[in-house]
């Protein structure tokens, strides 16, 4: 399903999306995700394709805003029945069946305030499905869920939506959520900067903006120094790295480089792409250590816990597979590597 949308206010957006199953729209906060969803639902003035010019009540869209917006004065089943027509008993029965499909049997009579965040979300989903929409819109579906159960609840939610057979567009700033999706679209600067299956988008970001949204913190511009045998050698602010030659390289002299923190490993020998760096900051993350290093450029590595944890000031020998040094074309002037994280670390 294709959805296009252009709006001027509250911020300019011009977006063309291909939806496939559960599609995640990844964008930083303030990038216009909520406005885009509202525009598609007809709640913000915009030109949209399909349903151009139709008022919200004539768009077959199910909208789940952040916080779900259940009607506080209605019971769970009455919330679901809001969109249903027909005799009272029939509405009651259909609402009950929808709640049961969402795994909410026995909660029909509860008011929203008597339900947990995850339960409220599923009541909102049942309510949205009741009007038999052609598209579901979800705004930050994980924001009101607690961290412990978030991934599980999201996976269940996606399962329910797939079972309902309705395409869904979920806006979020959380790259974790995107990993579960059928398709990912990255929104930055009012445009879709990249879209495709998550595996493709996360391993081959097309620009700094895309890489940043995909959660990659190590972003650099690098100079091509040598080019032979299917590999290029790059000078990345003093750090020499080798990477696979991308098909578009041609005669480019400068390229963008993205390195995932988890792609770096402690080196055991002197292979290629091995370098030493001094640890500047160390933070434990469960069984891993997030180590910020000065390797010429500042670089962040997510290392498995060793017998002894790395200390600030330690010199570490690190390595990275050439395949994990991701390159992309530098094209537009606006595309700068000045990710706030990189800038603040080097400053």
């Amino acid at each position, binding site marked *: 399903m294709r959805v296009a949308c252009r709006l001027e206010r509250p911020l300019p957006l011009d977006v063309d999306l291909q939806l496939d199953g559960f599609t995640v729209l990844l964008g930083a906060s303030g990038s216009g995700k909520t406005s885009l969803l509202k525009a598609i*639902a007809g709640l913000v003035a915009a030109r949209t394709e399909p349903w151009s010019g139709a008022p919200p009540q004539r768009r077959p869209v199910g909208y789940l805003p952040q*916080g779900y917006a259940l009607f*506080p004065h209605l019971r769970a089943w009455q919330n679901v029945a809001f969109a249903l027509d027909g005799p009272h008993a029939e509405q009651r029965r259909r609402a009950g069946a929808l709640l049961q499909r969402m795994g909410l049997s026995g909660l029909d009579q509860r008011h929203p305030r008597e339900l947990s965040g995850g339960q409220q979300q599923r009541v909102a989903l049942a*309510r949205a499905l009741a009007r038999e929409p052609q598209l579901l819109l979800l705004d930050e579906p994980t924001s009101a869920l607690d961290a412990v159960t978030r991934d599980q609840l999201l996976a269940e939610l996606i399962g329910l939506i797939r079972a309902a057979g309705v395409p869904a567009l979920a806006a979020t700033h959380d790259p974790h959520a995107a990993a579960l999706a059928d398709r990912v679209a990255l929104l930055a600067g009012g445009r879709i900067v990249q879209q495709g299956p998550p595996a493709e988008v996360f391993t081959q970001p097309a620009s700094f903006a895309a890489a940043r949204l995909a959660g990659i913190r190590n972003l650099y511009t690098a100079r091509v120094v040598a080019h032979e045998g299917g590999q290029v050698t790059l000078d990345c602010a003093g750090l020499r790295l080798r990477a696979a030659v991308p098909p578009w390289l041609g005669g480019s002299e400068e390229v963008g480089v993205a390195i995932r923190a988890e792609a770096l490993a402690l080196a055991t020998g002197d292979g290629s792409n091995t370098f030493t760096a001094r640890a500047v900051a160390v933070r434990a993350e469960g069984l891993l250590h997030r180590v910020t290093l000065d390797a010429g450029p500042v670089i962040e590595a997510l290392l498995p816990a060793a017998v002894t944890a790395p200390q600030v000031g330690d010199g570490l020998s690190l390595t990275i597979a050439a395949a994990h040094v991701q390159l992309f074309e530098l094209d537009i002037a606006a595309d700068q590597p000045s990710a706030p994280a990189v800038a603040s670390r080097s400053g």
Partner: protein
Amino acid sequence: MSAKRTIAALGLLATATLALPFAGLLWATPWLRLHYAAGDLGALWVSIGYTLLALVIVVALGTPLAWWLARHRFRGKWLVDALVLLPLLSPPLAMGLLLVISYGPYGWVGHPLQRAGLLLTNTPAAFVLAQVYASAPYYVVSARAAFEGVPRELEHIGLSLGRSPWRVFWRVTVPLSTLGLAAGVALAWVRALGEFGIVLIVAYFPQGIPVKLWVNLQEVGLDAVYPLLWTFFAVALPLPLVLGLASRRQAIY
């Protein structure tokens, strides 16, 4: 004395001051000699009947206006705001004179209406007219605040569930603003029922409770006001008191 106690003492003092006239009424009422003066009961029915009618008109006119002000932004909205507040800010006597100027037998609205058979001086219609002007702004201000208290998002969801704006208004907005709307009705009720200044000038007849109280005071003396005064409180206060207390404790949702 601690600051907390000082504040409590000052609060009690202020409460006692405000309550003093009511305690005085309880004290001064000649309970054994209490009886209605001639025409008192008539005044009671005039007040209740016409105030109810005025309320219906106030709600019918005021609700769409309050909704418009709560939910729409437009150029010159400040002017509409000011016009709504004008009758509320005008001294009752002045408001009564204004009504006479426009709706009186020689007024630019009153004259044609009179030729059409609707006399707006000293008639039930004039009485209701005076009450509408006395109470409508209070209802509009309360109803507007009540509508503004309903999250827009809930109305948006109602629309996106395929319901018409009209149906969303009745099934989402009204239920969620009931308490505020009821408080507005109660306020309008007590203002309309108790209006003296405007009514005195526009409709000396038919006599409702306020004007009748004044007449009793003038013609007989203070003794003649007690029965009607108690009746007035019994009729006017329960609704706004209950709703006022309920909205103070508002935690329905």
